[in-house]
């Protein structure tokens, strides 16, 4: 067995024989052409045929992957007819007396480079589109057929796959895609996700692997060549669980989070960074209800800069494409490692110098983060949430700092949205008890049940000796939650739950009845919770 670590594009597990999908080496030779008019005509004819192929491909793909994803082939057709591209090719034929294939290859390469050298990852990925259309033109010119068929369901391995190749593969027979190159922004990656096919990139595939057995773990990005029995068994199990989730997904994807009696709520996901966003989308999450910003601060030597943070937030916000992303400001404390903050060791870190308490005493750290978050707000729908609030005074201090940050950004002419929602975590009994006063000053509450439980019951959840006493469904907790929801609504704030209780499907109906507006859970729990919501009654039965 050989094990390779790559990057996962789409999660899922696949086991099967490998099929090497080599480039049909269309080595383009330079030939001297006498009759350039005829050669230009030959090129124009090939262009027309290619455009017709692409229009057809577009129409066929609409059914497979939807209009939004199929639109790329219309764009390809337009690229094919782009004035500059056409001129470059015709010009080469006429002035250098070269054959059409060669002229196309050179022009394609030049435009490929133009995109490949762009800074933005998204535009960089467009270079693959240029390559795709040039290769199509060359194939038409040389009269090659692009379709390849295979009988046995296989894991496709290739150096790279073109969008047109990806979509034309028989979906029923493709177990997974594994490529050496490619980016997570490429259309191929997007198509793989839409088609629900596990996909890995950055695997040093080899042609002589053709026909060998392999296993793909799209959860971890691992590729097993000729897996041993134990690995096979493990992968089979994982695949079984996947199939179950996928069945649930097929059944529930696109369905509303609505109770039997018609109450609809938002179902969001908790994430730790960009790496989790794919899981949010593939599980049909409606937004991000808790984006833990700690990962940016932990495991490093110094504070993250504004720019670093901005890029990290923006990436998530952009990928969520207009769906709400609630970023929680730094929640770090003496128990979490960040040596550069030089926090003193505390006897009781849970009750110590942490979260908003650090931010309010170190406004430099807080402001840098707020600036980064507000800057990211220009790229989608951002909301900010403050952790560990215990008093109205803390919130007032935060608002003063936020106002300063906004003023500075305006003065610096840096774009941000002015209507960014602000909310607080309700995770201390104090916050729950004064939630009526807090509600007027925020747009939303998010109840952090993990801390709320440990502070209310005065029990450390990590301490296994307390297991016999520990009751996460304790009446006191549920009363505080109900109170928070009612006070929130009275004060005009919507209320969500982002702690572990939010994913507890035995409480879903209880929360709906309390009037909760949003639940935020780990990505893998979205569909189970959706299933629970759809089986619940939110209102008492009428007499």
């Amino acid at each position, binding site marked *: 067995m050989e094990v390779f670590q790559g990057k996962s594009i789409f999660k899922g597990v696949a086991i099967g024989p490998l099929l090497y999908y080599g480039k049909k080496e269309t080595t383009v030779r330079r030939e001297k052409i006498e009759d350039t008019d005829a050669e230009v005509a030959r090129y124009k004819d090939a262009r027309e045929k290619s455009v017709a192929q692409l229009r057809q491909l577009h129409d066929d793909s609409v059914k497979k992957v939807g209009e*939004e994803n199929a639109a790329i082939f219309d764009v390809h057709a*337009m690229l094919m007819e782009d004035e500059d*591209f056409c001129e470059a090719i015709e010009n080469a034929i006429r002035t250098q007396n070269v054959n059409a294939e060669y002229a196309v290859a050179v022009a394609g390469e030049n435009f490929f480079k133009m995109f490949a050298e762009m*800074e*933005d990852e*998204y535009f960089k990925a467009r270079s693959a589109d240029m390559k795709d259309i040039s290769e199509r033109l060359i194939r038409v010119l040389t009269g090659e057929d692009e379709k390849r068929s295979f009988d046995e369901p296989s894991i496709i391995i290739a150096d790279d796959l073109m969008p047109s190749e990806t979509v034309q593969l028989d979906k029923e027979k493709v177990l997974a895609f594994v490529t050496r190159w490619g980016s997570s922004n490429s259309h191929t990656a997007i198509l793989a996700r839409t088609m629900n096919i596990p996909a890995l990139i950055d695997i040093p595939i080899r042609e002589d692997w053709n026909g060998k057995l392999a296993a793909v773990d799209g959860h971890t990005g691992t590729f097993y060549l000729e897996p041993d029995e134990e690995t096979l068994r493990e992968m089979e199990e994982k695949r079984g669980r996947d199939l179950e989730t996928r069945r649930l997904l097929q059944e529930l994807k696109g369905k509303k989070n609505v109770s039997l009696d018609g109450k609809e709520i938002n179902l969001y996901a908790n994430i730790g960074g960009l790496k989790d966003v794919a899981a949010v989308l593939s599980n049909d999450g409606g937004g991000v209800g808790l984006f833990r910003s700690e990962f940016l601060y932990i495991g490093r030597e110094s504070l993250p800069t504004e720019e670093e943070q901005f890029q990290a937030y923006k990436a998530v916000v952009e990928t969520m*494409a207009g769906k709400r992303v609630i970023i929680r400001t730094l929640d770090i404390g003496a128990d979490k490692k960040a040596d550069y903050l030089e926090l003193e060791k505390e006897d009781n870190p849970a009750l110590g110098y942490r979260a908003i308490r650090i931010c309010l005493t170190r406004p430099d750290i807080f402001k840098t983060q707020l600036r980064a978050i507000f800057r990211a707000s220009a790229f989608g729908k951002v909301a900010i949430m403050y952790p560990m609030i215990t008093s109205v005074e803390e919130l007032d201090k935060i608002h003063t700092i936020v106002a300063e940050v906004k003023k500075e950004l305006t003065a610096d002419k840096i774009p941000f949205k002015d209507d960014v929602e602000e909310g607080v975590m309700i995770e201390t009994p104090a916050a729950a008890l004064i939630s009526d006063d807090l509600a007027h000053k925020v747009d939303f509450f998010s109840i952090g049940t993990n801390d709320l439980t440990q502070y209310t019951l005065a029990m450390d959840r990590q301490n296994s000796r307390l297991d016999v006493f520990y009751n996460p469904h304790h009446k006191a907790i549920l009363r505080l939650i109900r109170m928070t929801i009612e006070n929130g609504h009275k004060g005009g704030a919507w209320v969500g739950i982002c702690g572990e209780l939010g994913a507890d499907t035995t409480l879903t109906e209880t929360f709906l009845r309390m009037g909760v507006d949003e639940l935020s859970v780990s990505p893998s729990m979205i569909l189970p919770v959706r299933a629970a919501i759809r089986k619940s009654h939110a209102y008492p039965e009428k007499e």
Partner: protein
Amino acid sequence: MKSFTYVITDPVGIHARPAGELVNAAQACGADVTIRVGDKSASAKKLIKLMGLGIKQGTEVTVEISGENEETAAAEMEKFFKEHL
């Protein structure tokens, strides 16, 4: 010549698909349409050049319209930008 400025709100900017739509709109309006961003510019009828500008969300672009019916063409283009980009 008519012109207007516009700040792109599309989250991914003028990438492949929106660029394709823009080219179609520019061709339909009949006049010459030029997109200017900083010191770079491209005809809105040339897809590759347009994508090559790498226009992202938040970028301010100047749109220049000249030629026949520039009055109505400018109005059409402005409407297109507001609705699609």
